[in-house]
């Protein structure tokens, strides 16, 4: 698919391929996002993950970083407890979003 080159004034081949890459990246199905989890008691964790990871996977990553057990972690947003089998993309968790970290 031909990307729009109207904004470009240079004829360099590198910028062309770079533009294609950027467009593909924005249209790609899986992205890497970084989520911030805060438990308001001093533990603030930034976790890099794919947006097609499930909440269960995210809990495992957080457990690896904080040292708690994965099944003791509860991820919430206000009063919505996020379920383990749903992906981050389905919960519409975007890059840089903050989630609340609680413990069972």
């Amino acid at each position: 698919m031909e990307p729009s080159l109207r904004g470009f004034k240079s004829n360099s081949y590198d910028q062309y391929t770079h533009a294609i890459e950027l467009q593909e990246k924005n249209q790609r199905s899986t992205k890497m996002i970084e989520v911030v989890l805060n438990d308001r008691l001093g533990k603030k964790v930034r976790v890099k993950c794919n947006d097609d990871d499930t909440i269960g996977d995210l809990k495992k990553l957080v457990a690896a970083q904080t040292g708690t057990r994965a099944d003791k972690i509860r991820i919430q947003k206000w009063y919505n407890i996020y379920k383990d089998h749903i992906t981050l993309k389905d919960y519409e968790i975007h890059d840089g979003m903050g989630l609340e970290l609680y413990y069972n």
Partner: protein
Amino acid sequence: MELDHVGGTYGGNRKPTPFICLVMKMLQIQPDKEIVVEFIKNEDYKYVRVLGAFYLRLTGTDIDVYRYLEPLYNDYRKLRQKLSDGRFSLTHVDEVIDELLTKDYSCDIAMPRIKKRLTIEAIGALEPRKSALEDDFEEEEEKDDDDQLMDIDAGGHEKDYYRGQSPSRERGRDRDRKRDSHRHRDRDHDREYDRDYEWERRDRDRDRDRDRDRDRYRGRDERDHGRDRDRDRDRRDRERGGRRRSRSRSTSRDRDRDRDREERRQRHARDTSASPSRRGAEDEKPKKKKEKEKKKDDGTDHPDPEIAEANRIRASLGLKPLKL
């Protein structure tokens, strides 16, 4: 009986199972030890048995725990277990008891630490564990003794492990001997590679004699002495090959040491397989290994260290690498 499954909490907001509610109730009433032992002794209701066992594990002394819970190893009835995501799974009474005795976390509760059985045996408060399957294992090991005459070490190993005894001096001695023979070999190997070129040539003959003597001694003890002899022959060939290579290239010690380190690495990798390889095969091996390492597809060799680290954690958890 209304109690029909074992479990901790489940679901998103951690609903408790009736089992864990009863455990909490018992902790509130604090029944006497006789009552708890009655719970454990009863044969009719298996869930009540497990409930008693769990409570005893939480509140009893080390010796009591081992004394009353180990007979339950013979109970192999099926149990229904509720997992933390709400599903049921199948387990058995003896599996649950094993979890209680060996792990320190069960049913969402971190259990108090108890001394290891070996420690209690060492102080003499308990006798060494007699397994119910001991007779079966004795028959098996008799069969092993008849089959392999050289197998003194392995037979001793099996007997000690299955009897559940504390590591006897015999087993410790075997372990030390095996460990020392390894260290011996590596130490000589290092010494040989780090010497200068002139010294190497002079000591080569001396080493060969030493290797042959050591081979003869080890052949008597270890089961696969054929393999060791091949391994040493390989090492000797490799020394000669390595030295020839160093002679043709520059005499800088760093480059020799790097190459030696690589050879040492592939030797360790190759030692796990039993086949002695020709000297020609060695030259292909380092090239093949480098290519395989470059083609790793779990992203752990990413230039950005943060992403490489994240991918490493993901790989260890069984997740796919990050999509960049």
